[in-house]
């Protein structure tokens, strides 16, 4: 009888453990989506404002890369460390192949997009205005 109770207890424990593990795995899961993009990075630094919760009156002098993505109308501004694996030098124009990962839910106070360099397609010294 004691042996039976022990085995029953072990089984209940095992199934409880599995149920909790499955619950935690799904409740904490972040959904990610990926795409590849071509970034045209300008030669001059831009200066941007920080995201909230930084105050709207915060300094707006955070250095950033000015980027035009192929096929996208809006200009993108990314701080210098945002493209993993890429080091920016002012004065050069770059064409980059980049992996964009979209994470939902977004990190708190963070961006839903993260960027990683796949290939530096070109790097050329800029002689004019971008």
């Amino acid at each position, binding site marked *: 009888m004691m042996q039976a109770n022990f085995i029953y207890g072990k089984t209940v424990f095992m199934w409880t453990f599995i149920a909790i593990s499955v619950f935690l795995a799904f*409740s904490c899961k972040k959904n990610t989506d990926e795409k590849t993009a071509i970034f045209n990075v300008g030669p001059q630094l831009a200066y*941007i*404002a*920080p*995201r*909230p*919760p*930084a*105050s*709207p*009156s*915060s*300094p*707006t002098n*955070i250095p950033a890369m000015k980027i035009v993505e192929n096929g996208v109308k809006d200009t993108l*501004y990314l701080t210098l460390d945002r493209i993993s694996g890429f080091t920016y030098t002012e004065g050069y124009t770059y064409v980059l192949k980049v992996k964009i990962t979209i994470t*939902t*839910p*977004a990190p*708190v*106070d963070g*961006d*839903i*997009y993260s960027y990683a360099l796949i290939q530096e397609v070109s790097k050329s010294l800029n002689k004019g205005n971008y």
Partner: protein
Amino acid sequence: MQKINLADFVQYQPNTIIHEICHALGMFHEAERPDRDNYVIINSSNLTSSGQAQFSKITQNYYMLGAYDFTSVMGYSSYTSSTSIVYNTSLPMYTRKDNGQSISQGYDLSTLDKSWINTFYIPYIARSDTYAELDNTVYKPDGTIMTSQERLQLQAQLNNGNPNPPAGGRIQNNF
């Protein structure tokens, strides 16, 4: 271990530092409450996708206290200068529903912010053994301080009925 990323200029914005530490403790933005639409109006058309992500409602695995707290350090101010969040920085991200006015982020922990933290966190004294010894000051969720009797009672509960820590187990605080 949790890593908190802070820009160097936030040394002049303690509310931003407190805000990020509160995230690490498990708190979310006030405007992410599931009932937030009763209190604020989200200006969705001015929010970029990154901006909208910070205003998504939390509908599961959450704990909240009281009504919407406009003084919470976890509330964003209505305006931001960040173009990664809004299309037009002269327009708000969101406003109060009752009077249409803008919202300012709380400067420090509000009463409800403190209650939330006190509900989940108990201050312990660092020890080298397994005894859970409480600090002399333990706040209750209502913001009042536990009497020594209440504290010893809780300490006993945490230690299989034993309210008395073994001698000599404290780790010296050299800070």
